[in-house]
């Protein structure tokens, strides 16, 4: 327990200059804390401004329609072409694939941890989920390169296993921890009375969980899904290691490039319009992320209002 500093009263005997100095200190500290407080806002503004300033010129030069809906990306060709539709679609498909597998599995895991596991199992689950979310994305990428890619190649008899499908598998594993932990919190927050009422009406435990608890936790689970989408669409390193990294239009067994990897893979050797176009890609990605954040905020706000 913290003791309250008893030396405080002494400073109470302030007279003239001493009081002025103390007031000045208070004013300085107040200003400092206020500046610190608004620094996060400043960072968001700076990031947005820098991305817009460096991303917009190339879009203007290429033309927004050609840029967003062009299907051919050949940044280093003699006659360069900067269409990023392949990257946008790949990011959307890849994220969708990850959600398709990751969300149901994640929700089932959360149901297990919140409703079926005893204390020990629940804390073990929480530990494993914590470990999973702490594992760096390059490690997931390494595992993907060594295990998933060869497995996909063997199972489907492909010349190369580094494709959209492998990326979906790795992404669906990577979004699991956020889906599990957020859904679990949502499931635990459902009032016990709901479940008790359902059980008293003769429903079994499993029926109660799936027909009462899960629907009641809907908004929390929706939050989990949106978070998962954000994580999947923003992942760069792991995807770069397993998706093959060729600017094709997406197909399930095509070697593809995501929005994130398009930026990362050419940045180190790019120049001129090519470099500017990479910033434009980042701007598009940023717009996607802001859209997801906005959705998340709306979902959370709506669920807060309900309470």
């Amino acid at each position, binding site marked *: 327990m913290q003791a309250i500093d008893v030396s405080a009263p002494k400073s109470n005997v302030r007279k003239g200059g001493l009081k002025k100095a103390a007031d000045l200190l208070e004013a300085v500290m107040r200003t400092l804390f206020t500046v610190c407080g608004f620094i996060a806002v400043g960072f968001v503004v700076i990031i947005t401004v820098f991305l817009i300033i460096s991303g917009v010129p190339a879009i203007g030069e290429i033309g927004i329609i050609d840029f967003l809906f062009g299907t051919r990306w050949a940044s280093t060709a003699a006659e360069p072409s900067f269409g990023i539709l392949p990257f946008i679609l790949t990011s959307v498909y890849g994220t969708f694939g990850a959600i398709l597998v990751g969300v149901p599995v994640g929700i089932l895991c959360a149901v297990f941890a919140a409703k079926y596991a005893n204390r020990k199992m629940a804390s073990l689950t929480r530990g494993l989920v914590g470990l999973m979310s702490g594992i760096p994305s*390059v490690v997931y990428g390494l595992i993907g390169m060594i295990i998933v890619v060869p497995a996909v190649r063997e199972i489907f008899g492909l010349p190369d296993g580094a494709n959209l499908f492998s990326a979906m598998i790795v992404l669906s594993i990577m979004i699991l921890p956020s889906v599990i932990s957020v859904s679990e919190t949502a499931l635990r927050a459902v009032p016990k009375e709901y479940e008790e009422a359902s059980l008293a009406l003769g429903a*079994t435990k499993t029926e109660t969980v799936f027909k009462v608890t899960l629907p009641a936790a809907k908004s929390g689970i929706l939050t989990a899904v949106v978070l998962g989408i954000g994580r999947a669409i923003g992942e760069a390193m792991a995807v770069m290691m397993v998706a093959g990294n060729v600017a094709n239009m997406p197909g399930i067994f095509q070697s593809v490039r995501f929005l994130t990897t398009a930026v990362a893979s050419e940045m180190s050797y790019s120049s001129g319009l090519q470099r500017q176009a990479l910033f434009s890609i980042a701007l598009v*990605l940023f717009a996607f*992320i802001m859209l997801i954040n906005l959705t*998340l905020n709306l979902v959370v706000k709506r669920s807060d209002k309900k309470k």
Partner: protein
Amino acid sequence: MISKNSTYSAKRKVKEKLLKALVFAAAGITGLLIIGVVIYIFFRGLPHVTLGLLASKPSLLNGTVGILPNILNTLYIIFITLLIVLPLGVGAAVYLNEYAKNKKAVRLIELAAETLAGIPSIIYGLVGMLIFVQFCSLETSVLAGSLTLVIMTLPTIIRTTQESLKTVPNGYREGALALGAGKWHMIRTTVLPSAVDGIVTGCILSVGRIVGESAALMFTAGMANEVLGFFEAFTPGNAGSTLAVSLYVYAKERGDFDTAFAIAAILLVLTLLINIGANFAAKKLGKGKDRK
């Protein structure tokens, strides 16, 4: 009627069993998957974690690899980042919890922090490159990388500190003020010491994020493998890759999977330690709440 009812209940039973099996299967598979991954990485990586690897730098002449520079760079970046982000983050949390009276301002700051937390690290890498490497002309350097990570870890520090400030009983504040302490004196001597658990938790979580970060550092801190002195890390122009970045380079660009797995094993051990540390700190934080 009875027979109809019994078929219905048979259907019910099957459905019930099926759903239950699904739940257990999902949990079991996920659990086995993660344990399998951990064991696999240790199995492939630990045999290659040798003293020679840990204590030397890569040498083309001898044909040896070493990750000493990467270990040092990781430590430097953790140190510099925390040095800068701690005052900023704790200050922001103190402002939000102790000073701010305008609800709209609080909401705006919290919204900004949430936005920062949601931005993917590749964007941080790019913006860090634009701001610190080019605009502030720090060049590709450990310092530029650290500054980028300051922005990235800020929301974590703000959130954990704020959570723990909220658990400091108001009586402490009133007591200090009643004894005649000024507001800053009250914060320094009473509020902050009681919130130390949250600050520590924030630090641990940030270290975890820094250790695992790669996309944000590739273009800001670079991929160099030279051993840097402590003060060199603070000067612009000295590039250096962390463990996670070097893992990527070894795996993807050089195809040296033995070294990559050795680094992965080290990263995994660090992740485990950080998780245990964070849980421990969070438990202490939880106890602080009970104390009220």
